[in-house]
């Protein structure tokens, strides 16, 4: 093997998006006979074969740092003043967590401080989206490439057999997938669902994702109770891939009112599974969805409820959004994104030895 690459990440968790992304970069590089070491801050049971950050020498030809939160791994890079490729997945602004989880707020704040310290060390920035890329450019990083998160779409994929049939005029299932966090604004979704329930009393809202912070989950349950829709909101928690696919297939519309998304993997999964999208235009959401969904500039409950009702009630619109979503999701198919990632990295390995 001619070259080595270090992939730096705080920890390799079981199934989170950044860990999967790192594994897929490792596979991509190893296929090209590049020796890869994964360097972590904390070892978990699922990541045997990783190197702890204390033993990291920074002597690989290319070191790629996955950055999305304050970490000791990033701190080590800063201490060593080692040149890196910064793979930026965005950092949620701390103000979203301040009232809910001050410790988490501090951690993301630290991540942002580290980001500005990492900027002068960055040989190249790789951003999941143009939104993320702009943040890197604003920090003075000139060489920025957009390359989406690598992940394998759910097995339903574009071959989904969703029939696009009529939805019960009083019902319909609205789905959102994503960590239950204040920046994703599940509370706005529940608010809109409460309004939607006035016209569709048999409808259902499904929220898939674990809670971070847990207090937010309790508040969402309280809000659902106060607005009279508690028994129609399913807090599914973290689910297996199989169950996630089932939720996608069972639902009639995917709604996202997140105020901060660096990319939005579930948006693409929803499109790939043939779910029509209604989303609030914030951060990278509009960019990821493109013209494959109903993108709103206003997410007040009545507006969002009206959009959901329109999609649920209009079979033709639903089918067209489904077709467009499936086509749009192909942009993020693993074969395409792997190629993009390799183009982003290739010259760093092929330059001077």
């Amino acid at each position, binding site marked *: 093997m001619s070259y080595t690459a270090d992939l730096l990440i705080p920890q390799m968790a079981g199934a989170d998006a950044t860990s999967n992304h790192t594994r897929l970069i490792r596979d991509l590089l190893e296929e090209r006979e590049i020796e890869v070491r994964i360097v972590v801050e904390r070892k978990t049971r699922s990541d045997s074969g990783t190197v702890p950050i204390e033993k990291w020498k920074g002597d690989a030809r290319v070191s790629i740092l996955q950055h999305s939160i304050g970490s000791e791994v990033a701190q080590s890079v800063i201490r060593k003043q080692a040149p890196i490729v910064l793979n930026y997945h965005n950092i949620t602004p701390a103000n979203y967590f301040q*009232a809910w989880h001050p410790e988490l707020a501090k951690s993301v704040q630290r991540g942002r401080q580290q980001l500005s310290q990492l900027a002068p060390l960055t040989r190249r920035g790789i951003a999941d989206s143009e939104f993320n890329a702009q943040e890197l450019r604003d920090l003075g990083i000139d060489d920025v490439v957009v390359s989406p998160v690598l992940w394998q779409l759910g097995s339903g994929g574009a071959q989904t057999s969703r029939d696009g049939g009529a939805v019960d005029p009083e019902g319909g299932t609205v789905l959102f997938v994503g960590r239950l966090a204040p920046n994703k604004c599940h509370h706005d979704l529940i608010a809109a669902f409460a309004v939607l329930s006035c016209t569709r009393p048999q409808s259902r809202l499904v929220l898939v994702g674990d809670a971070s912070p847990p207090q937010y989950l309790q508040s969402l349950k309280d809000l659902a109770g106060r607005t009279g829709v508690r*028994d129609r909101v399913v807090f599914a928690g973290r689910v297996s891939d199989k169950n996630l696919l089932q939720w996608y297939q069972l639902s009639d519309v995917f709604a996202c009112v997140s105020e901060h998304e660096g990319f939005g993997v579930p948006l693409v999964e929803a499109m790939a599974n043939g779910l029509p999208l209604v989303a609030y235009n914030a951060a990278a959401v509009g960019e990821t969805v493109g013209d494959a969904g109903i993108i709103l500039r206003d997410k007040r409950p009545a507006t969002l409820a009206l959009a959901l009702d329109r999609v649920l009630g209009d079979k033709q619109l639903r089918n067209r959004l489904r077709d467009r979503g499936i086509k749009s999701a192909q942009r993020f198919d693993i074969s395409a994104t792997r190629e993009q990632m390799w183009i982003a990295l290739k010259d760093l390995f092929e330059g001077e030895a």
Partner: protein
Amino acid sequence: MSAFELIDTVRISAEIEAEAEKRRRQDRELVQLEREIEQAWTDIAPAATPPEAVHDDGILLGHIANLAALDPHVPIGSRRGLRGVKWTIRKLTYWYIRFLTDQFNVFAGMLIRHLRHLETRMGRVELSTRHGTDQPVPAGLGFLDEPPEPSAAVASQVACYAGPGPCLVLSGGEGALVEAIGDRGIRVHGVEQDPNRVLAGLSRQLDIRTGDVLAHLVGAIDGSFGTIVLTGMVETLPLANLLGMVDQAARKLKATGRIIVAVADPASRGRVETDLGPGLGISPITWRHLLERAGFDARLEPCPDSRIAEIVVAHRSEQSDPDPEQGKP
């Protein structure tokens, strides 16, 4: 031109936003509903103040002073000759009242602070023990398997006992009972806490709702159900919750309604279940006793199932059953 090309999402989005705005102008109730929801969230969500401000006594007390429950400013009125005297009395009174209100507000502020601390600590305890108000299941249950889905024999027998009118199944599980009852043309829904079971039920197009069974029962309208079926996780509730459940179920039934209980006898549990879930669930005989005490005519019906050997069927005792054979499979 294909359907794919015909769609203009930007136009549709603009139309929806304009329509929503129009409805707000025309429908005051909609605006009011939006306000109420927003207020509900404001009440629930923690204030978005930096944590250090919350612990700073000066800022905290200042905040409380701004929200003083007692207003120390007395109304002003005057006649030329008495103006000076009144001004002096007013100032003295003001200082005194101000002193009293400050004392009161500081005291109230301290109480609020300590209550908030207590609430936070309680929340942590509830989270760590999974024993919050929303999850009345004892911590020991975490070590136990949830009761399995009722067998086809149980489902079909319970469905035969179900009377007319809407039916509620607590807990709904994956929907075996809901399906069997629904197949008899009875409007039925189940409530289930485990989202994976809800998913399984919804996959079969069954009306399985999510949430805590007892909370759902409490929230239902009085006299709204023809039949209430108690099964599934009811086996794992402590006696106090079961007593509450009987009371609530009786309220939510119509005058001609009935309660059906399909649970396994705790005495038939294995050693592990007995050790890890002491005091959880009661036997069908005890259910019959409780329901009779609650004013029902209750009977035990044998069931050909390895787990649930008897099913309790209870009618209101004040109305005589027009046909004693009705409801028998």
